[in-house]
């Protein structure tokens, strides 16, 4: 029984969600009973993230790592640091960020400069894509069960009431929001005074046009005799800048109407 816990692959199986419920329970008991084992599991988690960065995992495992170990902001940040560490090591640990790797400096070959630049762009884009995909998951998870009870600790941002057609809203000050450090979830509330749609789609966009996530088939939430379309956003996704919540309404006969965009600024 204990031998399997010594097996690195068994620990990986737990982290990748491959153990049965019963095996999982026994494994987790061991985590609590044996501190050294707990450390080994944490270490294996780190190594899985590392293997993901090094692209040495089979595709199915890489997908499981992305799905299971790159969900929380902390995990994503650690993935990013590991990627940065790898890149840092690859360029020989030289401190100046702006300078290319020494081997390229020595050769002065234009195609190597281009290659280095494209690698850098790929890393930047790769990090961004993983973060955005993960944000989509986080947002989906946060919004899966939107009830008054689980939203009390959210920081609320109320937008101007939903209008029934697109276009700029006149005489309306754009809401501004400062997200304190201790806030983990921001709740965007869009009042809906006349509800003629059975469900709504909402897309949060960071200006100029970076789509952060899309939530489909949202229902309105009742709160203090008013109806709201509620979108919960992980606070750390709202870095200072301008944002736009694009809303669509879906009728009973599946027609989709554009209900406009609602801007706000995070400062």
């Amino acid at each position, binding site marked *: 029984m204990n031998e399997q816990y010594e097996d690195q692959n068994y620990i990986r199986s*737990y*982290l990748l969600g491959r153990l049965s419920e019963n095996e999982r*329970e026994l494994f*987790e*008991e061991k*985590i*609590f*009973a044996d*501190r050294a084992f*707990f*450390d080994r*599991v*944490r*270490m294996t*988690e*780190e*190594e899985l993230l590392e293997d993901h960065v*090094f692209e*040495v995992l089979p595709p199915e495992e890489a997908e499981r790592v992305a799905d*299971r170990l790159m*969900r*929380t902001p*902390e995990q994503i*940040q650690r993935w990013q*640091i590991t990627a*940065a*560490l790898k*890149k*840092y*090591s*690859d360029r*020989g*640990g030289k*401190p100046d*960020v702006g300078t290319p790797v020494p081997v390229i400096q020595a050769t002065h070959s234009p195609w190597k400069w281009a290659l280095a630049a494209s690698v850098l*762009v790929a890393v*930047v*884009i790769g*990090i*961004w*894509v993983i973060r*955005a995909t993960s944000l*989509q*998951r986080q947002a*989906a*998870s*946060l919004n*899966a*069960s939107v009830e008054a009870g689980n939203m009390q600790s959210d920081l609320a941002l109320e937008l101007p009431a939903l209008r029934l057609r697109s276009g700029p809203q006149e005489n309306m000050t754009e809401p501004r929001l400062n997200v304190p450090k201790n806030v*983990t979830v921001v709740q965007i509330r869009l009042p809906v005074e006349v509800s003629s749609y059975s469900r709504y789609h909402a897309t949060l966009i*960071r200006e100029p*046009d*970076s*789509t952060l*996530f*899309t939530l*489909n088939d949202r229902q309105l939430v009742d709160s203090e005799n008013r109806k709201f379309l509620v979108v919960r956003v*992980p606070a*750390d996704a709202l870095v200072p*800048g301008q944002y736009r919540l694009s809303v669509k309404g879906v009728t009973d006969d599946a027609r989709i109407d554009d209900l406009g965009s609602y801007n706000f600024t995070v400062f």
Partner: protein
Amino acid sequence: MPKDLIPTKEQFEGLMAWLGSSTEDPGDKYETIRRSLVKLFVWNGCLDAEDMADETIDRVMRRVPEIAIDYSGDPALYFYGVARMMLKERRRQRTISSESQSLELRGVTTRSGQSDDDEINRKFECLDECIAKLPADSRELILDYYQEEKRAKIDFRRQIAQRMGMDVENLRVRVFRIRASIYKCMEKCLGTIALVQ
């Protein structure tokens, strides 16, 4: 949290006394249990792992007067039992694994804005700072460890271990510790979320 559910000072002291019955350092035991709870919830897909861990501890704390009378064994396992129940409750409320799948994942725009670049540059600057603070042998080891290309990596680890006169397992532990100290330093430098749990 309703006022009557907020643990009192007496309840906290009761918890520490109970933990103290099985260890010399109840504070350390408490920290270890909390860390294990946070990771347990993270590994079970909970985004609010810290809150869930605190809720588990609160629940146990409120029950200590009854538990302490006849509970035998490691208190950590009792915490795990409560955490397990909370996970089951959570799954009943919303099926954790299916909720993200039930919502259509839309394509994301693969753009890199200026602030993304700034953020990455800042990470590199912090990394420079944090790596510079490492002792020379640790710095050399971590840079070596991350330098190797793709598939040769596992053999490369073996080579590094041999060169340093240790086995691969010890090398893993050493790298894990160095990385933890880098995370800690990065946390301070970036002023962000806790990376070490």
